[in-house]
Each structure stands twice: as C-alpha cells, then as structure tokens.
C-alpha cells in the first residue's frame, strides 16, 4: 500500500498540490482522474521520486520515501515499475535489451536466465518475435506493451502508469487496460494509473481519486462514482465532458 500524508508541492511561487492525503491499495487498480493541470502528474512524480514535495510523507508500505537516504531510496525504487506516457523505451537498445535492462543492472541472473525472463515477459504481454527490433520499428500499442514488460521484468511491488492509453486507438486501449488489470491482480501489485479515459475508469478502476485544482476532491470506488457525480459539480462536468457517460 502507498499512503500520501499532507503532501504540498510548489513550483517557485505557484502551489500545485494542496495538502494531499490519499491511500493506494495493493492488488487494486487505483486511478487518479481529473482535468489537465489538476496536479495528477506532479503527484505521480512525487510518488516515484522525480519531484520532491515541500512537506508531508509518502509511505511505501510504511517506508517514508522522503526520509530515506540515497541507498535506501534506490532499493525502494527497484520495487517500482513505471509505464510512461511516451513509453520512454531506450531508442538505442533493441526490445530485448530494453526489457533486459533492469535485469542486467539489478539482478545476478546469468545471460540464459535473463533471456528466459525477457521471453516470459514478452509472452506475458502477448508479444513474440520482436526481440531484435528497435522501438522505432514497432507500433504505439506494442511500445506500451513493451513498456509494461520492462516494468514487470523485476519482481515489482508498485506499478505506476501515466496515461497508459494516450495516443492509442480504442481497441488497443482496451487491450492495454485488460493487460494492466490482469498483471495487477496476478502479482498483487499496488497499481496507480493516471488517466483521462473514463472507459478505463469504468472498466478496471477499483479505487478512484478525483483531483481538482491540485487537491483531492473525491475518493471512492467505481460503484460510488455515479452517486458522487450527482453531488460534486466538478466531477459531474469532468465525466460528462468525456465521450463515455
């Protein structure tokens, strides 16, 4: 479980996160939704350690990320996988080398063991025979799947997905959603997804957090969403503005 306690974050004079308190649960798809500029990405960057909040605590199963030393922080980060919006695959490496990268850096596996693990991860995301291709040679949907395969190459406990469906057609988006859901449930991962896609919310969202202007405006389950929509104007506007009602 990941818990955020009283998180505040500013860029120069502009405060972008206001006293955030939230919990993200193991084995569940925790979705963060909200309009662009609402603070979702900054909050995710704070959680993975790419930004440092001015105050508060970020606890990964009781380990406070903000009070760990550099070495301890790296150890926690090795339990984190992240699927970036633009996939962030390494251009100069083949698909196989991209997935193998965290294994080479952090495991003591032999070459053969690493190859087996790479093939297993590729099969797990329903990709085969692209080992020797470069990221520029595969489609956007395949890149996302390779990104997931790289994220799960090590035995991770936490998976962060930043806009996993951006730039994908609706059919591929559903495949990616289903894949993320399967992996989350299968490995009992604490999964946090930033998304604008309400179809994702209704399909796989277990725990939903709605952000508005840098603050958590609503938090609850998918089942509670329609009830909350009636009471919270901003949430209602956000849902109605999406293509899926």
């Amino acid at each position, binding site marked *: 479980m990941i818990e955020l306690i009283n998180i505040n974050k500013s860029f120069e004079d502009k405060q972008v996160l206001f006293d955030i308190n939230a919990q993200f649960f193991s084995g569940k798809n925790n979705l963060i939704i909200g309009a662009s500029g609402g603070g979702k990405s900054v909050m995710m960057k704070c959680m993975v*350690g*790419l930004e440092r909040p001015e105050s508060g605590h970020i606890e990964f199963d009781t380990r406070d990320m903000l009070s760990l030393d550099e070495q301890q922080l*790296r150890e926690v*980060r*090795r339990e984190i996988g992240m699927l970036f*919006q633009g996939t962030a*695959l390494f251009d100069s490496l083949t698909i196989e080398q991209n997935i193998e*990268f965290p294994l*080479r*850096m952090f495991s003591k596996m032999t070459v053969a063991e690493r190859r087996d693990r790479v093939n297993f991860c590729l099969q797990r995301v329903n990709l085969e025979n692209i080992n020797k291709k470069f990221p520029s040679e595969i489609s956007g949907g395949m890149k996302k799947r390779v990104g997931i395969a790289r994220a799960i190459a090590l035995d991770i406990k936490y998976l962060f997905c930043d806009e996993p469906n951006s730039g994908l057609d609706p059919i591929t988006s559903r495949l990616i959603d289903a894949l993320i859901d399967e992996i989350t449930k299968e490995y009992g991962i604490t999964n946090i997804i930033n998304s604008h896609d309400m179809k994702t919310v209704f399909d796989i969202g277990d725990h939903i957090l709605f952000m508005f202007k840098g603050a958590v405006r609503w938090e609850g389950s998918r089942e509670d969403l329609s009830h909350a929509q009636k009471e919270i104007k901003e949430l209602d506007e956000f849902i109605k503005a999406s293509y899926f009602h």
Partner: protein
Amino acid sequence: MNLSFFYHFGRYLMFLRSMLYRPEKMNVFFQRLFDEMTKIGIGSLPIVAITSLFIGAVTTVQTAYQLVSGLISKTVIGTIVSDSTMLELGPTITCLVLSGKVGAHISSEIGNMRISEQIDALEVMGINAPGYLAMPKILAGIIMIPILNIIAITLSIYGGYMAGELSGILTHEQFIVGAQSTFKGFTLFFSMIKAFTFAFIITSVSSYQGYFTKGGALEVGESSTKAVVYSSVLILFFDYLLAELLL
C-alpha cells in the same frame, strides 16, 4: 556576468559530483565506456585526419610565403610547422572541431533522452542517471581525445612535410632538420595537458547541457548549440590560461 552564471556553474558542479557514485554494475559501465571510446575515437578519426593534414599543409605554404628574406634558412619552416602544431594547432584546432562533432552529439543524445522521459525512466529504476549516461562519455573523451591529439599532430606535421615536398618549397632534409632542431619534450607534454583539459570541457559541458534540456525538439537543438558555443569559448579561455600558467 549575471546571477545565472553562478546558478549554472553551481548546478554544473553538482552535476559533476552526482556522477561520482559507484556504478551499479561495473561490467555495464565498462561496456558503455568502450562503446563511447569507439564512438568518440574511431568516429572522429576521419574529420581529425582531414583537418590536421590540411592545417599542416597550409601552415607550410603560408610560412614560406611570409619568409621573403633569403637570409632566413628554410629549415625554419619545419620548426614553425612542428612547434605550432604541437603547441596550438594540434590540441586547440582538433578540440574546437571535436566540440562541434562530439559535443553536439553528446548534448543532443542526452537531451533527446531527457525530453522523451528516458532519463526519468532511469531515475525511477533507481539508476544514477548522470553516472550512467555522462560518466562513460567524459572518461572516454579524456582517454580518446589526447590520443586523437597525437594523431592530429603526427598528421599535421606530415601534411606540412608533404606540402613542402610536393610544391618544392623546401627539401625533405630541410623540413626534418627544422622540425627536430627545437623539439622539446615539454612542448608535447604541454600539448597533452591541453588535450586532457579540453576533452573534459567538451564532454562535461555537453553532457550538462543535454542533461538539463527542457521542452521539445527545438530545445534539444538549442542545447546542442549552447554545448558547442560554451565548449569552444571555454577551450579558448583555458588555452590562454594554460599558456600563461605553464609556458
């Protein structure tokens, strides 16, 4: 000079310090180091060779043109070509050329990784990104650029010799006697100190510019331009400083 200079200088020093952690995997580090050495060393060899040969040839022809008095021995041409090549033309011109080739490449490569979130991906994995990306490039530059300097000096003197011989400006013996007459080991040593210093400037400044790129493709281009301009200016400044301190 405004406050932004101090901001960038401080951040540059912190960037250098952040590289000094022990690499996650030594074998990965050495593989990256050898890859970078190949890219910088072998990849730059053609441009360094062409530049050096022509600079040596031009120096011979222009020195002969300026020596209008029949009282001055033609061996002086060999002396001037070899000394000026070792002292200045070899390290400085080679490194100015390399700041364009190697510096722009380093900056655009790292800058592109920054804007496409590849550096963020390294950091999220718990990898020391400056150490992983920039350290092998800086070390490779420090190893390979002095070697390129030696090659440049050799080819430049050879270019000067060939130009003199082919155009009939001076004989083979006159060039060799002139080149050997004032040779001092310190001149070569000084040349190597310059090459080490310039190599560090090119690779570290370019890595810094690339690493802190913000924005998109346009900003990657801007970072590369800044890397080349700042490296070139710093090379010229340290060229003067080292000459003042060591000669």
